[in-house]
């Protein structure tokens, strides 16, 4: 596919440097090499909500990439881990934790599904020199699984379970990811939403109004239903 090959592609080493982050523009493609850690609500709540220490006090020199992910993993009889597929989970749910988490860990890349509100990029990520990358599809579980070449460590597995534990993955050619936000606080998703929104009203033109109104047809909760 000709369009697919035209996209600017970056191969970055983790920990990712400030100058590498600065080069990323919305719509660019990224592959990573180094260590990527997973953290989602289970880890955020444990550290930021309940006040537990990070399992690694100095995380950023090892990894400054937070993946909103739950792997398909199982433990072998020899104690090692088999990682099958790796897929992101929807990031908007973690919005409230981000500012504190970035401050605490010095994380510079957040990866997940579906992006975060544009305001978060402008007010939380960009001022801290951080950007958001989205997984593709959202089901490139096999490609991302291939990119995980080893499990360096896993924390809180028995307390939080496979899906919520903090995994430290050694990764190589880990991707593809699409850059959603840049250091100016732009959002690729928001740009595309705006482009599509112009056309949406015309899709409903000519369709008769509903017999009974309800949320969906009106956003104003004070409106009568008919």
């Amino acid at each position: 596919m000709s369009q697919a090959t035209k996209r600017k592609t970056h191969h970055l080493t983790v920990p990712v440097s400030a100058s590498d982050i600065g080069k990323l523009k919305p719509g660019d493609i990224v592959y990573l090499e180094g260590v990527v850690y997973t953290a989602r609500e289970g880890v955020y709540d444990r550290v930021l909500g309940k006040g537990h220490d990070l399992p690694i006090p100095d995380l950023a020199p090892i990894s400054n990439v937070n993946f909103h992910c739950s792997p398909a993993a199982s433990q072998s009889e020899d104690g090692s881990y088999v990682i099958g597929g790796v897929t992101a989970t929807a990031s908007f749910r973690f919005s409230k934790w981000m500012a504190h988490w970035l401050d605490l860990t010095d994380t510079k890349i957040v990866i997940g599904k579906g992006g975060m509100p544009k305001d978060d990029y402008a007010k939380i990520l960009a001022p801290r020199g951080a950007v958001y990358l989205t997984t593709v599809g959202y089901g490139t579980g096999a490609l991302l699984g291939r990119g995980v070449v080893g499990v360096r460590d896993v924390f809180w597995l028995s307390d939080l379970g496979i899906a919520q534990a903090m995994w430290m993955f050694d990764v190589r050619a880990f991707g593809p990811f699409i850059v959603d936000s840049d250091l100016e606080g732009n959002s690729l998703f928001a740009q595309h939403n705006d482009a599509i929104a112009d056309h949406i009203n015309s899709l409903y033109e000519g369709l008769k109004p509903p017999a009974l109104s309800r949320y969906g047809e009106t956003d104003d909760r004070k409106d009568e239903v008919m």
Partner: protein
Amino acid sequence: MTITADHIEEAAYQIMKKAAIDIPDDYLTGIEAMADKETGDLSAFVLSAMLDNYRAATEDRRPMCADTGLPRYYVKVGDNADMKSMVALDAALRKATANATHDVPLRPNRVHPLWRTEHNNNLGINAPEVEWSFEPDADWIDITTVHKGGLFGSDYRMLFPGDGIDGIKRFLLDTLIAFGKRGLACQPAIVGVGIGGSKDTCMQLGKQAACLRVVGDRNPDPEIAKLEHEFKELGNSIGMGAMGFVGSSMVVDCHIEVGYTHTGGMPVSVHTFCLSSRRATARIHSNGEITYRTDPRWFTPYMRREGIT
């Protein structure tokens, strides 16, 4: 010759693996055709990456998506099938689910809805779901597993006869646009639309329409078949492609199933079966032989109770 619980367990274990790893041919062909037509460059990039992903999954024998969804079963029992215990059949499905979860591996997704407790095996209270149907003049048992994500892309609305087809289109557009934004529905999807029945039947019909019919299949009622085509075109005219990027790839195909409903109402449900449309079927023959396929053949004429009797 009797069909035993061992046959059932083996068949269920294999389809759990196949569903998780191998994209069904009908869906693959549908996505390839959409990729050729897609003019939105980011949406085209996404489809191209997904095609790479299907190949990687099959080559490596690893799941195409790490979100296992909610693995569940559809069982069709031939009227002449010689299976002594349906409780044993059910137990075999549970055992296969736990074993496949560990071996593939699949992500253990099932948790208690309130206490969030889990057993790391995709089993629990009322899980996995097993739906039953029967087929006359047959001595086999068909088992289909579907792994479908569950958070985004499905909705239900009670419409009324006066809303007509316009009302259904309005609801379909609302659902596709709401969940298509940022690609939360993981489109392009097989869209299932359930029309009629009681509320729960309406949800069930739409879900089965999305998950148990293959791309290219048409409803036997020619007028409904026309609507399926029209709804597909409507979805693809929104201007939204994969991941909610500008494009045209929203609906790979649309399937409609109907059920007779209350004279005053027209309930409608919409379901999207995602970019990792995972389904696989096994037929356990009366001699214990097991054959595998990707078309569930769930909606037989008998299943729809075509005609009045």
